[in-house]
């Protein structure tokens, strides 16, 4: 592991440097015509380097950079790749979308500079959160992701969007402060046994000493950590900011917030759970996660029914799915963990595709109100079909990937907690009914008059659908092996 030279790390460093530099460059020229394309080029470059990084990890196992600063293993590298991929496809959508918003005067020049700069800045903070080995830097990066996106939520400067931005800022700030207290407690426990205090927050070092850490401190820390990072995951009852932030900001932002940021926060929770389990010797951390997850899953499914705004509706669907994933990580066996990891991928891909489609639909009908979007399939079939397919996929119907992962999760639940399956099935049906109640008239209803077709590039959406279809029919061996490696790291055993 240590005989690798600098070039091994160059893919990792480039993955972080490109978006950071890009953020600076776009802060200067983000309002020009080329900004959209430049954003796309930067995202492509990040995707290529993270792909190279993923291949390296696949062949040579996990890497730790000198001074233990970055740590990349099977678990985080697949999220890095997912992040840069969704960042790239969303950038394809973002260019024309934001150009349109600029043309109709919703966003001024300064707003465009801010938007493009923060798009890259946001990607950078997420990639930093994933790759860092230092739990303190993980916190700084997750907080940084909030700071990068908070002004984008209020980008349109409407009263609603400013309210959403303020709520997002205060609630996530307060929440994430709890996570910092949890991190401090972990550090407090760590300095008692790790002599070199500069290494005492390094995840890899802590993991090696996990069973020696004082369990009472760790349990207390975990409660603070799950409340803190759980706020960012959007777990009920800490979810209030999420539908507002996801619905009021520009749609490309909603796509990456819903598709990616929630994953990052959950990633942090799982990393801490990996530290706490060996120290405690019980699955109490898992039980806490199961409780939060199940509650989110049920409540979000019910709240779906009473939404009037299409983006809000799909944000509740995100809460529901994050709840399910949290629940699965809480169960903790190999099968549940495998399912949860797969569900993170398929949910990200599906949800970002849906948000891109919703963005087109909202631009087409000039509204986000569910009651005023009607007959999409007649006005512009590609948007209508995409919305329909996306909803079918996210509701967990075969043959899409969400079905596969949910099937795995349900099998795992039947094995360990059979009586909870009834609740899960009920939640799934409730969410299904809620989604289709709203989507059916939007897609098939009587078309509203005076709506003219818009130019819509549906390639990113089609690409996402193809991948989730592929994952639904047969998970490729390479990916399965890869997720299995991550499963072994998290739960101790693989499923393959």
């Amino acid at each position, binding site marked *: 592991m240590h005989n690798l030279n600098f070039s091994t790390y160059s893919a990792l460093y480039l993955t972080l440097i490109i978006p950071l530099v890009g953020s600076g460059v776009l802060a200067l020229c983000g309002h020009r015509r080329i900004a959209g394309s430049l954003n796309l080029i930067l995202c492509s470059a990040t995707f290529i380097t993270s792909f190279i990084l993923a291949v390296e990890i696949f062949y040579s196992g996990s890497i730790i950079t000198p001074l233990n600063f970055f740590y990349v293993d099977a678990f985080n590298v697949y999220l890095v790749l997912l992040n840069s991929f969704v960042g790239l496809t969303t950038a394809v959508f973002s260019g024309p979308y934001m150009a349109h918003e600029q043309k109709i005067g919703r966003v001024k020049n300064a707003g465009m500079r801010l938007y493009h700069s923060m798009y890259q800045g946001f990607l950078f903070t997420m990639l930093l959160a994933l790759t860092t080995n*230092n739990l*303190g*830097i993980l*916190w*700084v990066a997750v*907080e*940084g992701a909030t*700071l990068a996106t*908070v*002004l984008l939520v*209020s980008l349109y*400067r*409407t*009263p*609603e969007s*400013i*309210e*959403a*931005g*303020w*709520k997002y*800022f*205060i609630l996530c*700030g*307060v929440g994430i*402060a*709890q996570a*910092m*207290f949890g991190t*401090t*407690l972990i*550090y*407090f*426990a760590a*300095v*008692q046994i790790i002599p070199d*205090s*500069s290494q*005492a*927050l390094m995840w890899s070092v802590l993991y090696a000493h996990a069973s020696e850490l*004082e369990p*009472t*401190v760790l*349990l*207390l820390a975990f409660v603070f950590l799950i409340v803190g990072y759980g706020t960012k995951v959007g777990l009920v009852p800490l979810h*209030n900011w999420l*539908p*507002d932030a996801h619905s*009021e900001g520009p749609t490309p932002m909603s796509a990456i917030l819903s598709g990616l940021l929630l994953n990052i926060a959950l990633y942090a929770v799982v990393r801490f759970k990996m530290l706490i389990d060996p120290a405690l010797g019980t699955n109490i951390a898992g039980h806490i996660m199961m409780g939060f997850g199940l509650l989110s899953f049920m409540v979000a499914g019910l*709240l779906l029914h*009473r*939404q*009037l705004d299409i983006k809000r509706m799909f944000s509740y669907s995100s809460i529901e799915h994050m709840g399910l994933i949290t629940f699965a990580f809480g169960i903790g066996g190999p099968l549940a963990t495998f399912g949860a990891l797969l569900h993170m991928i398929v949910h990200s891909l599906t949800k970002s595709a849906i948000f891109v489609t919703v963005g087109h639909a909202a631009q087409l009908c000039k509204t986000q109100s569910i009651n005023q979007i009607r007959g999409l399939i007649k006005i512009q079939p590609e948007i209508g079909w995409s919305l329909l397919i996306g909803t079918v996929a996210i509701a967990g119907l075969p043959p899409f990937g969400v079905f596969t992962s949910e099937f795995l999760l349900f099998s795992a639940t039947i094995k360990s907690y059979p009586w909870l399956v009834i609740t899960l099935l009920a939640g799934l049906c409730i969410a299904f009914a809620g989604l289709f109640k709203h989507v059916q008239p939007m897609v098939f209803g009587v078309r509203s008059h005076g709506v003219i077709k818009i130019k819509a590039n549906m390639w990113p959406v089609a690409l996402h659908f193809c991948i989730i279809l592929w994952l639904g029919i047969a998970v490729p061996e390479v990916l399965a092996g890869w997720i299995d490696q991550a499963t072994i790291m998290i739960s101790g055993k693989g499923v393959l």
Partner: protein
Amino acid sequence: MDIVVFTLAEQLILTLAALMLFTSFLLLAQTRLLTLIHIFALQGGLLCVTTLVIAFTYGRHHLLISAALTLGLKVFFIPILLQRLVARLDIKREVEVVGNPTLIMLGAAALVLFSYYAVLPIRELSMLATRNTIAISLAIILLGMLLIISRRKAVVQVVGFMCMENGLLFAAVAATQGMPMVVEMGVALDVLVAAILFGIFFFQIRTEFGSLDVDKLNRLKEVD
């Protein structure tokens, strides 16, 4: 309980901890905006002194940078920024309290008791002094949250937010003698950016809503 003999440094730190908790109560009781900001600066000053005491007693010289950051950000930059914003935005100087002030103070006292109760399981690990400081920092964090909940002005919510940050830093400094340098720098950067963003938000809220009362931010509802 055994009688524990504290060293001079420990006594100093405990006194400072008590004073920081006291300033949190002062923040909760204060209804004038400018005085509130001044008390917040005082709390930052106490945090800075605590950091210095620990830096010198335990020979942790990287804490000097941390102390300088606290001094710059919490004692000067943020209070001055807030004071200027209050002047420029011409905000009413009196702050309304939501709910009964007596109840809020009683609630605050209950939160302090709760903090001591929550850290009770941490035993054997360290001396009584550390357990005290962890409990007090948790109390400062919770009182900051209470401050955010109990006031209507956006400015006070920011003070509450920063007060929570003070509690966090106090925990990091007093219980663990400072986080690694890179983390401290990162946290300071986040606080700086957050303070600037808060300023921007004040202008946005003021332009759209005509005042800084967060009560007017009530358009987005959970359902319907």
